[in-house]
């Protein structure tokens, strides 16, 4: 199959790749570009581990074709820390012991970031709803919910 050129902005940097038609964004990110923060859990859109942010919206990179991302702005968890300082969500996940094996963590953080970008002061129900497409084997979710609420409070204090 003919290769297709794809250009997009990943975590603030221009990226250009040739991909096979039909290549998923997940595959392009992990195996072509080398950003392994999105995880391939189920490859069919049911676990949320591959979640990334495309033009401000939460997307499953395993169900997104790379060739549809031309000109897009993509954020992954590996792009959140700035100058070695963790993003408040990453900090909150660490402090709340909200990660064990870590496989769901990048997807959880992506889902939480989109929530906080749109709803800076979410209720617990808002957080549960936002994370409902992501599954976790280890934590029982409660530490993750607490981490997101903590990050939201930290953000609103910084804004005040």
């Amino acid at each position, binding site marked *: 199959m003919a290769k297709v050129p794809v250009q997009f902005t990943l975590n603030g940097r221009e990226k250009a790749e040739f991909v096979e038609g039909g290549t998923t964004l997940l595959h392009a990110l992990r195996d072509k570009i080398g950003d392994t923060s999105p995880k391939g859990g189920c490859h069919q859109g049911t676990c949320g581990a591959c979640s990334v942010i495309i033009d401000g919206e939460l997307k499953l990179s395993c169900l997104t074709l790379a060739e549809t991302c031309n000109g897009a702005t993509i954020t992954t968890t590996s792009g959140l820390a700035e100058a070695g300082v963790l993003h408040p969500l990453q900090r909150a996940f660490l402090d709340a*012991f909200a990660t064990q094996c870590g496989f769901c963590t990048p997807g959880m953080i992506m889902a939480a970031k989109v929530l906080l970008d749109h709803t800076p002061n979410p209720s617990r129900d808002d*957080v549960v709803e936002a*994370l409902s497409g992501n599954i976790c084997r280890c*934590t*029982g979710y409660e530490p993750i919910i607490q981490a997101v609420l903590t990050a939201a409070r930290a953000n609103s204090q910084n804004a005040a």
Partner: protein
Amino acid sequence: MAIRRGSGVAAINYPTGMNLGGDPTQALVHSTPTGNFMVTLSSVDLGQGLKQIMAQICAETIGVPTDRVIIDTADTDTGPHCMGTFASRGTHRAGNAVIQAAKEARQVMLEVAAEELEVNASDLETDGEGNILVKGAPQKSISIFDVALSAHFKRGRSISGRGMFLIPRSYPEKETGAMKPSTCYAHACTVAEVEVDDETGEVTVLTVKNVFEIGRALNPKMVEQQLVGGSWMGISHALYETTEPYYPNRDHGGTDFNQYLMPGPGDLAETEIIVLERPSADGPYGAKGPGEMCANPQIPAVANAIFDAVGVRIDTLPITPERILRALKAQAAS
């Protein structure tokens, strides 16, 4: 037809490790030239935190800060022998092996320090911050960094140790069948409250209150993390998860997350965790194995709560709405 409420209780004992052909784990410890300590294991960290716990155990035994210890979980081709990371055995078996190896390495470290300070090794102690001091005369001291340099470049010593922990196989007595399959048990008790819709068979777990007795909690935050996640997983086993829903008929098994039910963040019960610490006699610094134990008592507690709510005993997991409705139907017919 109504929503009926019930509560149930269950208590368990859970063995640490296993009793097949004997249960050994080995560990090796050696210092780098700059006085960091390398622990080589074949045990694995799969997210439960084994590396952190082994670093704490090694650091505590040698007398250095935890960040001076490097854990290499190596691989099973090259590492010292370990039966594996299962049966809630990692902390207990590997921890004991690390203590033995670290004690031997500490002894060599003190011997080299004694030569440098021209005192007896038995007169030395560590301050836990990277220094070795003469007991009663702490102004006379040497850093572990300098001790390691001396051992490597001056005195030709290897600051290292070997550790082996083995629980031998226990055979049953022929007459009575009595045996000792485990030397160390963790314990737990759970009270669950549920609501059962006797029209749809749906179960909602309202609260789970757990008490876990896990020996000494070597890292209390990580223990809490394990127990909270385990309590949730226990409910999941009780009500949702199965690979073989019509066992022994193997058809209709879930093949993906569309078909294999796993509860999400919207399905949480109010959860309480209480930790009791009764240090074990043969565990590393009193630890037991809390790993799998913590996901067990919720299952019988939920089953008992369902019985309390609607009067049917379900003895097949998971306790699905279908199973409850069939049992209610059978109950009404009899």
